[in-house]
């Protein structure tokens, strides 16, 4: 997110450790010094995260409305979701948050190899998350569980439900539950994808030695974004898989 001086890009190959405090190759022309630039970038990211909270907030509201008015539907439908996969993904994301936070620490301390390693671990865990998600999605779609009007669970999957749920008729609005499920986890998944792309970009720049104690704003910014993605999953997991 940080803006740089147009001519700064040309010098981008230079040492990342240059200019602690003063002007460096990555200092945009309208900032006074690197500290000024860092704090401004961080503020911008936080505002963006605030906006993201409301972006997801609309979906959480939809969840709340339908859950409050059709609690039996949600209790029935969560049996279709495997909490073990959800819990696995929760731990995967916590791990990736840890490595992202560690990457910021490495950048701040100028430990380049640790930085690259933690970034790669973060990316690997994020990919793991998506793979698990892919398994869940494809399994559901294979068993006829789409969203909205295209939700017709197959007899096989109905047979796997716990006994008390099997006794119930399939609710007419199961598709609405899965609409909310796919919307929320799907939007979250898109954020994970974007996160992977951002970390890949950061890792590439880290490889070129851009980051160090004097300039680590982009690492911090992407990590902050990543923690928010983690935070949203922390709420999605119990709401869909456990309740």
């Amino acid at each position, binding site marked *: *997110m*940080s*803006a740089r001086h*147009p001519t700064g890009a040309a010098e981008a190959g230079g040492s990342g450790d240059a200019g602690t405090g003063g002007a460096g190759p990555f200092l*945009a*022309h*309208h900032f*006074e010094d690197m500290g*000024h630039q860092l*704090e*401004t970038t961080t*503020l*911008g990211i936080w*505002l*963006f995260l*605030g*906006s*993201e909270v*409301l*972006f*997801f*907030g*609309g*979906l959480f*509201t*939809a969840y709340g*409305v339908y859950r409050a008015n059709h609690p039996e539907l949600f209790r029935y439908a969560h049996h279709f979701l495997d909490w073990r996969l959800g819990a696995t993904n929760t731990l995967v994301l916590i791990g990736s948050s840890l490595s992202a936070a560690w990457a910021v620490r490495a950048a701040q301390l100028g430990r380049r190899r640790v930085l690259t390693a933690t970034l790669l671990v973060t990316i690997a865990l994020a990919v793991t998350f998506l793979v698990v998600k892919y398994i869940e999605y494809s399994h559901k779609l294979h068993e006829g569980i789409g*969203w*909205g*009007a*295209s939700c017709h669970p197959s007899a096989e999957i109905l047979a796997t439900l716990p006994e008390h749920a099997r006794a119930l008729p399939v609710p*007419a*609005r199961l*598709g*609405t539950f899965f*609409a*909310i499920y796919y*919307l929320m986890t799907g939007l979250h998944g898109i954020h994970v994808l974007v996160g992977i792309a951002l970390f890949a970009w950061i890792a590439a720049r880290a490889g070129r030695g851009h980051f160090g104690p004097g300039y680590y704003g982009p690492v911090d910014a992407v990590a902050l974004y990543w923690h928010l993605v983690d935070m949203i999953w922390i709420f999605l997991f119990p709401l869909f898989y456990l309740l």
Partner: protein
Amino acid sequence: MTTAAADAPDRAGSYLAHGRGARSWLLSLDHKRIGVMYLVAIGASLLLGGVFALVLRLNLWRPSGGLVSNDGYNRLFTLHGAVMIFLFVIPGIPAALGNFVLPLQLGAKDVAFPRVNLLSFWLYALGAVLFVATLVAGGIDTGWTLYPPYSLESARGLGILLALGALFVVGFSSILTGLNFIATIHRMRPPGMGWFDLPLFLWALYATGLIQVIATPVLGITAAMGFLERVFHLGLFMPEYGGDPVLFQHFFWFYSHPAVYIMILPAMGVVSEVVSVFSRKPIFGYRFIAMSSIAIAVIGFLVWGHHMFVSGQSRTASVIFSGLTLLVAIPSAIKTFNWLATMYKGAIVLATPMVYVLTFFAIFAVGGLTGLFLGALATDVPLHDTYFVVAHFHFVMVGAVMTAFLAGLHYWWPKMTGRMYSERLGLVSAALTFVGFHLTFVPQFVAGVLGMPRRYATYAPAFAGHNRLSTVGAFVLASGLVVALYGLLRSLRTGRPAPANPWGAASLEWSASSPPPWDNFERTPHAPPGPYDYTGLRHVSDEVGWVRGEVTP
């Protein structure tokens, strides 16, 4: 400073001369060029929306319509609303004037994130293209409020999908602008400028930014949900599939009511600047005005349900929303009386921006006070969805916001272009706009009280008189805008060069030359004693403008 550009402004070094060709504009990271590009795009949107409005008014000349079909009329008012709201009024003051002025008022070289700023402009442009594509795809006839089930029925094809896409994209443009402005105001203030030394325009932009960042994402997600509902029948909003249409209304108004404050707050900011400068007096009650902007932004979030008093919303919700809605009257009253007190014992200069602002007072008073009728439950029920509402929001959004936009445009025009506009044409346009505006919308209040619902392609013959007056007024209003446009464009060729400080204003943007150089200030300027401290400013001549300090003749 005393020897400031006495001759023609140094255009060679200005931002206008910094690079030539389309690329140097379209990819510019300079907040001033981005502001000017916004201004052009917004002006084009205003023209488009205005033409739609005139056709609508012509169709309403006769009770049975006839100029266009009912469906044609419905498409026209939908696009009139959508284009005016999303492409003109919401981005109007913040994105065009705000972009240009904000860093200058802070003595900064640019906004905090110039690239985000350019991205925001391009998202806006993409959204505008999508709206035009909607038009090409046959238009939409859903009303700008897009209420399901009507808007998401299977009969509605590509048009509605394009429009929802446009909302999504324009929404993100707005979020990024707001975010950028907040960060800039937080972090780019010059040494010595505390929060209460900010020009009030910046307080207004700050409050606006908060709304943009918090409310607009809900519009985005609502548009996305609507899009998917239309394509995949998710069962969220369409009763046919088990959804709840009133839920959409909640989502829509959670954004779209605060959006009204995205429009009016920057307008109030412009008024605060102009009224002080042209009264030659510090603004009265700075802190109350600043805090009332924040109060409006916060209360503005809690009132969306007043659009739903007759929609089947629960009674509890209606009572809560009515109470909160009426509270908005208080910060609005504070501002109005503080502006009036600013003029008290001043030395009022009747230049075009000030005349626009004087008309703003009357228009905003009517717009605000008629809001009481609609915030109070008992009177809202009969007036809801009638022409009373149409007149009310046009007083606020067209009357107040557009008048303030024109005031601000004339006020900062010399800074933007380095040319003085013609005062005579400016005053004529202000007068025509004022008269035309009232002729258009006052009859609509009466028609609404008498029970004429809005969005009617045809109407009972009893309302013919009201509608004809209104149609005549619309053309007078349009002529006022044409005169304003002509006056401003003509000044680009024939206007005399503007001095750095033609109005004797004290805020920092006037210490840069007109037009400002590419990076605004050689060195970060020190904050002035106060943004409204006019002591020591002397008018030297029309060529030199106002300068601070003693002048040797």
